[in-house]
C-alpha cells in the first residue's frame, strides 16, 4: 500500500435511507437550537415521522429496484437483501414507537431538575419538555440501520455506539419514577460501554489476525492464515460478547430486566423491538459473513448460549411481579429462540430457510412487543403506569377490549397457533430441525411450555380474578397509542393467519443471503 489516497466512491442512492434518517436527526438538533420552545414539538413530530416514512419508502424502492450484489461505500456498508428487509422492519417499528413517544406524558420536563425539587415543579408548570427526544431517537434509529448493514467491524463498532449512546440518554428521561429511570440509564450505560469495549478488543484481535476489519477479507483469511488461531478464537469470542450483550443472551442478559423496567415505556418498546432486530442483523452478518468459514467452531458455543438463554429467560420470568420486567425476561427467552435460528446454518438452501425464518420471527416479535408495551402505557393509576402485576387483576372485567388485546399479544408470545408468534417459532424450529439441531428445538419447546405459564398467569389475573378495589384505570389512549395497539394487533393476527406474503418477502430477502 503506497501513500496515494484515491477518493472513495459512495453509492449515495443505496445509503439514502440511512442518510435521510441521520439528516433528519441533524435537522432536529438544529430545530432544538433555533426554533422557539413552543414550536419545537410541533416541528419535531412531523419531521421525525416523515423522515422515517421517507426512509422506508426509499428502502422499498431500493428493494424493488433490485438488490445490489456487492457492498457499497468501498465495502464498508452492505445493502443486501437481509439488510433491506431489516431496515424496513426497523423503520416501521421505529415509526410505531414514535407514535407512542408522541404522548409526552412519558418524558421528564427537565432532566436536570432534582426529583421532587422546586425546579421540577416549575418545569411541570411550564409544561417544559425535552424535545431532544426526537433527534436522539432518530440518531439511535440511524445507528440501528447502520449496525446490521455494516460490512466491516469498525463501521459496526461506530454504528453500535451511534445506536447505543442516544438510548442511554433516553433511558434516563422517564417522567415518573425518575430514580429508577436514572438508575436504568446508568446501568445501561456502564454495562453497554463495558461490553462495547469487548467488542472493540475483539475487533482489534481479528484485525491482528486477518490484517483487515473487512468481514469479507476476514472470512478469506480464515482459510489462508494459519498459526494464529488463538488470536482468532479469542477475538471472535470478544465480538460475540459485544453482540450477545445487545441481544441480551445469557450470561449477558443481566442488564435487560433492569433497563427495560426503568426506562420510559416507549423507549423500552423501541429497544425491545428495534435494537433487538438490529443486533440480530449484525450478529448474523458478523458470524455468517465474517466468520462463516468458522461456523463449525462457533455453532457449539452458540448452542450452549442459546440453551442457557432460553432456560434463564423462561424460568426467571415465572416469578416476576412487574409486568415490564416480565416482558423483559420474555424477550430474553425469545432471544434464545432466535439464536436457534442463527445456529441452524448449513447448505445455502438451509441458510436461506433459517435466515428467512429468523427475519419473519423478528418482524412478528417486533410488532407484538411494541403492542404489548403500548398496552402497558395505557394501564395507569395515581403513580403513573401500573407495573405491578397484582394491579392488573380483573382488568378483563373493567376493560375487556384492552385486556383481550393484551391477552392476544401474550398468546402470540406463547406461540399459540393462529398468532404471528406461532409461525415465527415454527419457521425457526423448522429450519433448526432440518439443520439437524433437533435437541435445541426440544429444549426450545420445553422452554416455551414453561414460558407459556407466565403469559397464562397474566391472563388468569386479568380475566379470572376479581378486580382490586382501587385498581388501575385504563386511560383513554391518545390517538397515537391507540393506533400503535391497533397496528400491532392487526399485524399479529394477519401474520398469524396469512403469513405467506411476509414469508415470501423474507424468503426473497434471504435468497441472496448476505453479500460478501
Amino acid at each position, binding site marked *: 500500500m503506497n501513500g496515494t489516497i484515491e477518493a472513495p466512491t459512495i453509492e449515495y442512492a443505496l445509503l439514502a435511507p440511512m442518510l435521510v434518517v441521520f439528516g433528519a436527526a441533524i435537522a432536529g438538533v438544529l430545530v432544538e437550537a433555533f426554533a422557539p420552545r413552543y414550536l419545537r414539538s410541533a416541528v419535531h413530530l412531523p419531521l421525525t415521522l416523515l423522515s422515517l416514512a421517507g426512509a422506508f419508502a426509499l428502502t422499498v424502492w431500493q428493494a424493488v429496484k433490485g438488490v445490489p450484489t456487492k457492498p457499497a461505500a468501498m465495502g464498508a456498508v452492505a445493502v443486501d437483501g437481509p439488510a433491506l428487509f431489516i431496515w424496513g422492519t426497523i423503520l416501521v417499528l421505529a415509526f410505531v414507537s414514535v407514535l407512542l413517544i408522541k404522548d409526552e406524558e412519558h418524558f421528564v420536563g427537565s432532566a436536570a431538575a432534582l426529583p421532587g425539587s422546586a425546579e421540577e415543579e416549575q418545569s411541570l408548570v411550564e409544561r417544559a419538555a425535552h424535545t431532544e427526544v426526537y433527534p436522539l431517537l432518530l440518531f439511535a434509529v440511524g445507528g440501528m440501520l447502520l449496525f446490521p448493514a455494516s460490512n466491516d467491524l469498525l463501521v459496526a463498532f461506530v454504528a453500535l455506539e451511534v445506536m447505543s449512546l442516544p438510548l442511554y440518554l433516553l433511558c434516563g428521561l422517564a417522567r415518573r419514577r425518575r430514580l429508577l429511570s436514572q438508575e436504568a440509564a*446508568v*446501568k445501561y450505560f456502564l454495562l453497554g460501554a463495558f461490553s462495547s469495549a469487548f467488542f*472493540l478488543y475483539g475487533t482489534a484481535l481479528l484485525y491482528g489476525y486477518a490484517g483487515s476489519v473487512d468481514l469479507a477479507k476476514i472470512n478469506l483469511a480464515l482459510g489462508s492464515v494459519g498459526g494464529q488461531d488463538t488470536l482468532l478464537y479469542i477475538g471472535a469470542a470478544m465480538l460475540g460478547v459485544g453482540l450477545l450483550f445487545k441481544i441480551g443472551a445469557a450470561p449477558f442478559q443481566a442488564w435487560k430486566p433492569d433497563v427495560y423496567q426503568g426506562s420510559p415505556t416507549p423507549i423500552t418498546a423501541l429497544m425491545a423491538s428495534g435494537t433487538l432486530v438490529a443486533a440480530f442483523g449484525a450478529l448474523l452478518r458478523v458470524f455468517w459473513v465474517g466468520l462463516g468459514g468458522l461456523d463449525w467452531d462457533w455453532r457449539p458455543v452458540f448452542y450452549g448460549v442459546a440453551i442457557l438463554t432460553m432456560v434463564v429467560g423462561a424460568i426467571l420470568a415465572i416469578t416476576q411481579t412487574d409486568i415490564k420486567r416480565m416482558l423483559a425476561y420474555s424477550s430474553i427467552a425469545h432471544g434464545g429462540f432466535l439464536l436457534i435460528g442463527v445456529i441452524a446454518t448449513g447448505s445455502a438452501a438451509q441458510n436461506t430457510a433459517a435466515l428467512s425464518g429468523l427475519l419473519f420471527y423478528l418482524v412478528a416479535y417486533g410488532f407484538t412487543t411494541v403492542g404489548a408495551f403500548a398496552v402497558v402505557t395505557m394501564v395507569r393509576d395515581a403513580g403513573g403506569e401500573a407495573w405491578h402485576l397484582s394491579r392488573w387483576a380483573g382488568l378483563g372485567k373493567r376493560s375487556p377490549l384492552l385486556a383481550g388485546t393484551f391477552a392476544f399479544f401474550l398468546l402470540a408470545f406463547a406461540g399459540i397457533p393462529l398468532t404471528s408468534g406461532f409461525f415465527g417459532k415454527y419457521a425457526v424450529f423448522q429450519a433448526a430441525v432440518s439443520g439437524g439441531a433437533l435437541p435445541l428445538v426440544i429444549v426450545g419447546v420445553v422452554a416455551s411450555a414453561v414460558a407459556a405459564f407466565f403469559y397464562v398467569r397474566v391472563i388468569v389475573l386479568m380475566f379470572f380474578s376479581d378486580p382490586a378495589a382501587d385498581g388501575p384505570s385504563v386511560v383513554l389512549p391518545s390517538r397515537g397509542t391507540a393506533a400503535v395497539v391497533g397496528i400491532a394487533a392487526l399485524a399479529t393476527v394477519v401474520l398469524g393467519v396469512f403469513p405467506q406474503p411476509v414469508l415470501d418477502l423474507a424468503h426473497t430477502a434471504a435468497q441472496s443471503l448476505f453479500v460478501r
Partner: protein
Amino acid sequence: MTTHYLVLSALLFAIGGVGVLVRRNAIVVFMCVELMLNACNLAFVTFARQNGNLDGQLIAFFVMIVAAAEVVIGLAIIVTIFRTRRSASVDDVSLLKY
C-alpha cells in the same frame, strides 16, 4: 517484538476490566472502561505495524472520537444521578433488582 505491546494492551484491558468490577465510584468505573478502549487502541496500532497497513492507526482515531462521545453522554448521566443521590457510588443504584 510486537508481542510485548500486545501483552501490554492485554494487561491494560484486563486492568480496565478488573477496575470496572472492583471500583465503586461511577466516574472511576467509567475511566476503567476508557482504559479498556485505549488498550484496544494500543492493540490496533500494534497490529497496524505488524500487518504493515495504516488501517489500525486509522481505527485508533475513530475509537478516540467514539470514546469522547461516550464521555459526554456518560458524564451527563453520572452527574444527574449524582445530583439526585448525592453519591456517585454504583452500589447505591440498586433499586432495580430480582
